[in-house]
């Protein structure tokens, strides 16, 4: 904490709201995978019909007119949309920098050629269903072959090979093998993103949260690997929020630069914001992007600092982290206006440290011992298990 930050808290919310520079279109919640750490809403099967192509194209035009320039195409698995190429072509023609975030499932030679021709700028290949795929990788089975072929196609079509791997308790000890796999794929950039606890990952939190020792080992392995591949590969390691003592500056503040649209057309100031109570999220079906961004109550709800409670309201760091993540505050404390409990200044920080302590116990105690928590089943993201999540610490330990 620098003296400068104490001396110069940023001004209160200015009326000058900037443009939504970052547009994320979650084109579909359909996905061939069933990841236990997916951040998609746990009741995704209840959401309405997907927007038709014409509506997505209109959203692209309206947001671009406001100044949106970075476009993420995500899901679900965006490749299940047959109009993905048409959406990419329109986006590129409008001047977006177009990023595709994909598991690679469905990325055939024909499709990557069509996407390239449509002007796709960038592909981020996610190594999604890590528990199963890691096993596949270790035994050189089918999924590894598929990912390996997709990685080769991505390089062949002149894209940098960017791999995103989600880490959690069940795979973090294999980070060395994961990095070797990334190297074998010819990855130039690897993001080792520890699971954050929203959506399906929230339901599975006590099974997925690693211990501090696991995290430190994984970081050490990553650092050694980083030194070996310096100049060829860049590796980012994202620590889970739960091990921090200050919250992330989530979305640089809600309503600041980021606008997401869900498959059914619901516009959100953060891709997890659907869970927040009392936030009447507008739909692009009945409101244009300009009105949504500048005028809708949902997008103004967390702008500025007047919504903040103590300890954020008087905190010298409030202009740096904006109180952290609203969704995390809601999930853990039941109130989205509270400080993100990741912050050790939050009176609710104990909810985070106790979750970490349970993870420690689970890592140390032999299975079935008193130290280990009761075995719980992992809930795989699936239409059959799609359920609403009730906020509050208790809901994770039903």
């Amino acid at each position: 904490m620098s003296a400068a930050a104490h001396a110069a808290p940023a001004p209160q919310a200015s009326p000058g709201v900037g443009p939504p520079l970052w547009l994320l279109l979650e084109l579909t919640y359909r996905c061939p995978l069933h990841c236990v750490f997916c951040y998609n809403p746990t009741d995704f099967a209840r959401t309405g019909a997907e927007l038709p192509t014409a509506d997505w194209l209109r959203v692209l035009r309206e947001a671009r007119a406001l100044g949106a320039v970075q476009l993420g195409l995500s899901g679900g698995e965006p490749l299940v949309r047959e109009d993905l190429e048409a959406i990419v072509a329109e986006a590129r023609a409008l001047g977006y920098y177009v990023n595709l975030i994909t598991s690679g499932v469905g990325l055939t030679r024909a499709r990557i050629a069509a996407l390239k021709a449509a002007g796709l700028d960038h592909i981020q290949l996610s190594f999604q269903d890590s528990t199963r795929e890691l096993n596949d990788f270790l035994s050189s089975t089918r999924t590894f072959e598929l990912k390996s072929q997709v990685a080769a196609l991505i390089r062949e079509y002149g894209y940098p090979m960017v791999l995103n791997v989600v880490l959690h308790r069940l795979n973090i000890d294999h980070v060395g093998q994961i990095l070797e796999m990334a190297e074998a794929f010819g990855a130039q950039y690897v993001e080792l993103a520890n699971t954050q606890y929203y959506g399906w990952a929230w339901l599975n939190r006590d099974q997925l949260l690693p211990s501090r020792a696991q995290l430190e080992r994984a970081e050490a392995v990553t650092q050694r690997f980083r030194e070996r591949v310096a100049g060829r590969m860049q590796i980012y390691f994202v620590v889970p929020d739960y091990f921090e003592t200050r919250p992330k500056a989530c979305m640089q503040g809600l309503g600041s630069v980021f606008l997401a649209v869900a498959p059914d057309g619901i516009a959100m100031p953060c891709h997890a914001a659907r869970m927040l109570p009392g936030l009447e999220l507008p739909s692009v079906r009945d409101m244009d992007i300009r009105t949504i961004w500048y005028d809708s109550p949902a997008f103004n709800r967390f702008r500025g600092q007047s919504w903040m409670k103590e300890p954020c309201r008087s905190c010298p760091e409030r202009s740096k982290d904006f109180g952290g993540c609203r969704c995390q505050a809601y999930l853990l404390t039941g109130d989205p206006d509270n400080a993100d409990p990741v912050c050790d200044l939050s009176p609710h920080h104990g909810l985070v440290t106790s979750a970490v302590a349970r993870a420690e116990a689970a890592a140390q105690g032999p299975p079935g011992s008193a130290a280990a928590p009761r075995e719980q089943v992992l809930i795989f993201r699936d239409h059959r298990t799609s359920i609403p999540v009730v906020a509050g610490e208790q809901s994770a330990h039903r």
Partner: protein
Amino acid sequence: MTDMPDTVRPAIAQGLRLQWEPAQEAHVLLYPEGQVKLNGSAAAILSRCDGARTLADIVADLERSYGQSGLATDVRAFVVLAVQKRWLELRE
């Protein structure tokens, strides 16, 4: 890097894009999931890095366009920095 010859032909790195953004009233350099907002001189240099012009050509063009001389040191320093940041790649 400091001994970069005048004959290198810098180009915007593959996968990146330089464009004018009216909403930001600036040139921006776009890269995967991010952007840099450029000031006027950075934009003037980068917009001349087309992989065809040499560093010497770029300096001469800038000096002509802005009616100044002695820009070589600053332009070279920026190009070196931009290569380090992987905004530019050098073609021989």
